[in-house]
């Protein structure tokens, strides 16, 4: 079975680098982008099974990045990361087509579960 390819988009580079390493240790292929523009450009060049996107980024915001991702590839599931108290933005992201959102700090097992569900939405209870 092919490895699942994840694109991580977040301006907190140490956060995404660490998360990418943890996903790699669990058998995923992960690539990172430090801002929305880079993430969109990576998505335009290669395909990913799932994208993890931070909502609060300098420059192109998370929601604008999401809109552009959906313009490029409607099918790629996007899981958004947000802070506590920003659930309104998370809900807005879902309205724009995101699969779901998670709160920072993350629980890796919760993220893995969301990725599985995003790739197989029919398994959602």
């Amino acid at each position, binding site marked *: 079975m092919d490895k699942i390819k994840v694109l991580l988009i977040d301006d*907190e580079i*140490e*956060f995404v680098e*660490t*998360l990418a*390493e*943890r996903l790699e*240790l669990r058998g995923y292929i992960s690539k990172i982008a430090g801002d929305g523009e880079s993430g969109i450009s990576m998505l335009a060049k290669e395909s990913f099974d799932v994208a993890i996107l931070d909502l*609060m*980024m*300098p*420059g192109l*915001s998370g929601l604008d990045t999401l809109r552009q991702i959906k313009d490029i590839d409607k099918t790629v599931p996007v899981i958004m990361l947000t*802070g*506590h*108290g*920003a659930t309104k933005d998370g809900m807005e992201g879902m309205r724009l087509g995101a699969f779901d959102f998670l709160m*920072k*700090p*993350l629980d*890796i097992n919760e993220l893995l579960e969301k990725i599985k569900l995003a790739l197989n939405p029919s398994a959602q209870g």
Partner: protein
Amino acid sequence: MKPMEISKEKAAFLGRITASVSHDIQNVLAIIKETSGLMEDFFLMQQSGGLENFDAKVGKCLQTIKKQTYRGVDLTSGLNGFAHTSDVHQISIGIFGTLNRLISIAQRLFNQKGVDVSLMECPTPCSILTDPVLFQMTVFSCIECLIDIIGAKKAVSLDIQASEHGLAIRIVCQDTPLAYDDYSPKLIQSTQWTAINGLCEQIDMSAEIISDVPGILISIK
């Protein structure tokens, strides 16, 4: 502005800055949590068969945690100092220290718009007796006004000027090629400019549009 309106504006300003800093603190905690999780992964791998470069990998994680801890301490200290500025309505404050802390904790809000705000070193220690929250609101509003109305794209700088005529804070855009005739009407017609003047009145300061470069000069009477 009526006292009730001032209180509401102050609370909104304090809330906005606090929300931004707490977002940064969440990021710090998220990095520490992920890094300690990665260390846990390394220890499990080491226990079940060994892990190449184990010491170096764990050492790198510890460095990350240490760096983020310092970042967290800076953020919480800045936020704590900022929060305490609302304790009194009038007190003597050091202008450089107060603005330096404000810029540091509000930088994320400016960075969101792609702008980096900097404060030039001030060789002369300058203090003023003022309402510290209203003073910070005034300067913050000027920076935002330059970003939102004048369209500063990359950098805004602040310079504290002390002379025999008194104290002033010069806040300028460094990357906007607009001429005075272009930026002056834009500022004057904006609601932000009216709000800045309203704030200045409260703390006995005045705001004027700078003529040689897009910017605002806050003069302390």
